[in-house]
C-alpha cells in the first residue's frame, strides 16, 4: 500500500515551481480560506491538528505561537531553512519542488501570528533552492499575492530570503536570529525566549520549512483530517530521508507509523539494501539523535518511540544506513568530526568537549585507540549538553547522543578492533603527534 502524497504531491510535476502550475493544482486556496478566518481561529486549528515542529525538537507549532505576548505590536516570522543536519534534505526537496507551498504556509503562519515580515533564513550552500524560492517570491509579488492587501484582505506580508554563511549552529533558532541580525551565530541565553524577545528585540516565531508546508493542508482539509494520519502524538504526513547503501536513497513521504525497517525495505521507499550489503546500524534521525543496531530496526519513526531506543528524538527523520562492512570507528570519527567543527565555541563544555572527542575518535580511527578512550568518550559525553543545564543550546546534546550510543551499542566491535591493533601503535602515534 502506498501513502497519499501530501507535501510532495507536486514533486515530479513539470513546472511545479511556478505559480501557474501550483495554482492549477489547487494552490493558494488554503490561504484564501485562512484570511477569511480570524487569526486566532487559524492558531486554534493548528493547535487542534497537533502539528509538531518538523525541525527536530517536535514542539507543537500552534502552542509555540501562543507564547507570543498578547499585547504585541509587531511580530516577526523566521522560516528556518538552514537545513544543515548531515544526511537531511527534506527541506531542500520541498523548496526545490514546491516553493509556493512554503510561501503559502508562510503566509498562513504570518497571518495567524500577525507577522508582517517573514525572513526565510536559508542555508548558505543552498544555491539552487535559493534561486527557486526567490523566483517564487518574485512571482508571488508580481501576482499581488505578497505585499499589501493579500487576496483582498487588509493583511500585508513581506517575505525576504537571507542566506546563511555555512554554520550548523545557525539552525538553532536563537543562533539563526543572531545571524539574521548580522552577528556571530551564537545561540542566545534563554529566557527571554524568541516569542517574547527575538529578532531585533521583537516577538519572533521561528518555524521549519516542513512545518510551514503542512499548514496549507491543515487549513484546506481541516485538523481532523490531519490528526487522522499517524498516531495521536505524531500527527500528519512527514518526510523521511534515507541514504546509504540502499537501492533507492531519497526523500519519501509517509505517516509517522512507519518503521525504520520499512523505510529501508519498502519498494516505494528505500527498496532494500544493495546486493551484498547488510545493515549494521542506522542513524535514524539525522546524526544527532543516536544510532540503532540491526536488531532495533522496528523502531517507529515518530516523536515518541525513538526515546525507547535510547535516542534523543525523531530529529530530522533522515536515516543513514550503515553497511555491515563499514568500520564503526570511521562512523564514530565522522560523527565526532562534524560536531568538533560545528560547535560555535561559546560554552566551554561543548567547545572543548566536542574537539576532544574528535581528537580521540580520530586517533581510534587511525588505529591507535585505547580501551580507556571509550570511557573518556562516555564521560565527556555526560559532561556536556543542554539537558543537564551545561550549555546554552542543544548542539552538545546532539553531539553526545550519537557518540554515546555508538560507544555503548558497538562497544564490542570497538574493543575488538582496538585489541587487534599492533602492539605499541598508540605510543608510536602519540610520539609522532606530540
Amino acid at each position, binding site marked *: 500500500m502506498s501513502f497519499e502524497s501530501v507535501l510532495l504531491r507536486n514533486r515530479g510535476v513539470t513546472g511545479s515551481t511556478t505559480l501557474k502550475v501550483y495554482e492549477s493544482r489547487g494552490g493558494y486556496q488554503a490561504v484564501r480560506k485562512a484570511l477569511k478566518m480570524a487569526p486566532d481561529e487559524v492558531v486554534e486549528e493548528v493547535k487542534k491538528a497537533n502539528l509538531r515542529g518538523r525541525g527536530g525538537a517536535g514542539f507543537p507549532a500552534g502552542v509555540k505561537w501562543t507564547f507570543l505576548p498578547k499585547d504585541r505590536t509587531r511580530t516577526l516570522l523566521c522560516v528556518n531553512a538552514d537545513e544543515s543536519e548531515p544526511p537531511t534534505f527534506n527541506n531542500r526537496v520541498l523548496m526545490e519542488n514546491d516553493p509556493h507551498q512554503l510561501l503559502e504556509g508562510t503566509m498562513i503562519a504570518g497571518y495567524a501570528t500577525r507577522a508582517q515580515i517573514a525572513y526565510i533564513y536559508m542555508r548558505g550552500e543552498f544555491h539552487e533552492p535559493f534561486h527557486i524560492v526567490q523566483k517564487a517570491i518574485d512571482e508571488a509579488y508580481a501576482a499581488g499575492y505578497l505585499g499589501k492587501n493579500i487576496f483582498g484582505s487588509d493583511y500585508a506580508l513581506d517575505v525576504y530570503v537571507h542566506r546563511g554563511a555555512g554554520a550548523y549552529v545557525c539552525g538553532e533558532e536563537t543562533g539563526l536570529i543572531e545571524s539574521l541580525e548580522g552577528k556571530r551565530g551564537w545561540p542566545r541565553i534563554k529566557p527571554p525566549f524568541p516569542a517574547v524577545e527575538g529578532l531585533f528585540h521583537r516577538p519572533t516565531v521561528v518555524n521549519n520549512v516542513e512545518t510551514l508546508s503542512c499548514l496549507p493542508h491543515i487549513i484546506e482539509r481541516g485538523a481532523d483530517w490531519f490528526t487522522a494520519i499517524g498516531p495521536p502524538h505524531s500527527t500528519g504526513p512527514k518526510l523521511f530521508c534515507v541514504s546509504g547503501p540502499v537501492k533507492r536513497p531519497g526523500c519519501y513521504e509517509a505517516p509517522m507509523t512507519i518503521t525504520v525497517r520499512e523505510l529501508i525495505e519498502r519498494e516505494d521507499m528505500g527498496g532494500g539494501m544493495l546486493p551484498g550489503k547488510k545493515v549494521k546500524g542506522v542513524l535514524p534521525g539525522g546524526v544527532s539523535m543516536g544510532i540503532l543496531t540491526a536488531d532495533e530496526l522496528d523502531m517507529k519513526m515518530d516523536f515518541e518511540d525513538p526515546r525507547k531506543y535510547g535516542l534523543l528524538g525523531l530529529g530530522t527523520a533522515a536515516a543513514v544506513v550503515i553497511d555491515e562492512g563499514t568500520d564503526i570507528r570511521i562512523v564514530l570519527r565522522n560523527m565526532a568530526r562534524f560536531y568538533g567543527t560545528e560547535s560555535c565555541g561559546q560554552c566551554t*563544555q561543548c567547545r572543548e568537549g566536542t574537539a576532544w572527542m574528535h581528537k580521540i575518535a580520530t586517533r581510534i580511527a587511525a588505529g591507535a585507540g585505547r580501551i580507556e578512550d571509550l570511557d573518556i568518550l562516555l564521560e565527556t559525553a555526560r559532561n556536556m549538553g543542554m539537558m543537564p*543545564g551545561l550549555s546554552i543550546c542543544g548542539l552538545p546534546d546532539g553531539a553526545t547522543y550519537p557518540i554515546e550510543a555508538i560507544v555503548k551499542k558497538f562497544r564490542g566491535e570497538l574493543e575488538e578492533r582496538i585489541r587487534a591493533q599492533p602492539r605499541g601503535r598508540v605510543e608510536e602515534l*602519540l610520539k609522532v603527534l*606530540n
Partner: protein
Amino acid sequence: MPKITIDKQMIECRAGVPVLQAALEAGWDVPHYCYHPGLSIVASCRLCLMEMQMPDPKTREMVWSPKLMPSCQTPVKDGMVVRFDSPAVRKNQQSCMEFFLLNHPLDCPVCDQAGECYLQDYSYKFGQPNSRMVDPKLKNPKKDIGPKTLLYQDRCVMCSRCVRFTQEVSGTAELCIVNRGTRAEIDVFPGKPLDNLLQGNVVDICPVGSLLDKDFLFKRRVWELRGTDSICPGCATGCSIRIDHADGVVYRLKPRYNPKVNAWWMCDEGRYGWKYVHDRKRITAPLVRRGFEETTPAWEELPNILRFRFEEHVREAGSGKVVAVFSPFMACEEAWLLAKFIREVAPQAALAMGPVPLAGEDQHFPVGASGHAVKFTILKEKCPNRRGVEMVLAAAGGTVLAYDEFIEQTLAGAFSAAWIVGGYPAPWVDKNAAKVAEKFSLLVVQDLFPSDLLAGAAIVLPACSWAEREGSFVNAAGLVQPFDRAIDPPDGVKRDGQFLYEIAGFSGIFRAERVRELMAETMSAFGEVSVPPAVAEFAH
C-alpha cells in the same frame, strides 16, 4: 532586601543582582570567567552553575531543578534556595576545569599572569590534578594586537570579557571573535589594532594570561609585588588605583573598584603615566645658596634655615611681600602644612594657585556616549588636586591669587620672596614663570625636576612623586580620597609631608590621617574621607 538561602545559609542581598554576585559579596568563592559585574551577561563559561529550587510544573511544589542553572544569569528573588556545594555542581566545575586546560599550554613558569591567574586558582580549588588528554594540544597563535597589548590565544578561555569591554565600555569595538568552536580566537580587524585610551583594562579583566601588557611583560613575578592603595594623579577624575611595586620600584598601576568614581576601570594615560617617578633627572638633594656659596645642608638643618630666611625677609621687606605658590599635585595635607608655615612666618603673605595643566577636551566612554550612558570619563584637567588645594587656600583666608594674577602682580613688583611648589610630572616652567624668578630676592623652589626656576632659587628642595607620598586628593566630584605611600623616595629626598610637618612646627612622624583631623577642625570636608568598598579577593 531579598533574603536567599545559599548552601543552607540564609543571606541578605542587594535586590536585582545575579545570584553569583550576591554569593561573591557574601563570601562564597564561586568560580566564574565570563561574568563581570561591569559587562553584559553571556553565561557562556558555564563554571558558575548552581542547583536551584524550582516549582514543579504539575504540583507547584518546590523541588530541586533537574538542570544546573547559571548563577550569573539568574537574578536573586526573595526566598530563593540555591546550592553550590552539591555533587553535581562540583562535578561540573571539575569537568569544566579539565576542559579549560585541555589545550592550555601550561606555561605558567613564563606567564606573567601566574600568581594572579584564575586558571591556576580554580584548578587548585575546583579542578582535578591530572589531565587525561594524551593527544596533541591545539596551538592557537600568539598575536600582537595593539601598541600596548599582546594576545596569547593559546592561553585564552574564551570568556569574551575583552570583546564585550571594547563594545560596551570603551565603545571602540576593536576586538572580535573569529573562527568557530575550539579554533575560535580573539582578534582585531585587519589594520585596526587595539588602540584606545581604555585598552589597558582588557588586560585587567582577562582572568588568565591571554592578554598581556607589553609594558609589564616579563618585568616581575606578580607574587613579588606589593600592592598599595592609591589615587591616580593623572587627571581630576581621581580613579582609585593600586600601585604594584617591589624593592622600591613601581612596576604597574591597576584600577581598584570604586563605584563613585571609576567603577572597575582606569585609562591608559593614568596607567602608564607613572614613569617619571623613576626618572634619573629628578632632583635628589636640597641646595642652599648664599651669595656665590652653594651648600647641600642636612635635612635636619633646613627647617631652621627656611624659617630664618623668611623671617629675615619679612623683617626687611614686610610680610606682604611674601607669596607661596601651591601645586595642584600637592596633597591637601601638604598644602595645609605649607600654608600654616607661610602664614606663621609671614601673616600677610599671599597664597597662589600654581598652573593647572589642561589638555584637549574631556573624553567620555563609551565613545560618543553622553548623560547616563557614560561609563568612564578622562578629564582635560590633568592634575589630581586643584579642588583640594583651593579648599585649603580658601580656608587659610587672606590674599588668594590665581596663577595669572600671581604672574602679573609679581612682574609688577608685588612680591620679593616666594615658595614655589612644582611637582608636575612634565616640564611646567614656561617663560613667564622663569621671568618672575628674577623678581625674588628669596626664592624657595620645591620640585621634582630641574628647570629654569632653579637658577634663581636661594633654596632648592627636592619633591616627591605621589607614589612616595601620602595624603588625600579632592577629585572633580568633590570626593576627598586618601592615598597611601607605596615606595620610598630616592636617596637624599625627604617626604614632602614629613618635611612640611616639621617646618610647620610639629614633631614626630607625619601621618596624613592625623593632619586631616587637625584640618577638620576648620574644614569639615576633611572629617570624613571617601574610601571605596572592599571587594572580595575572588570577585574579579
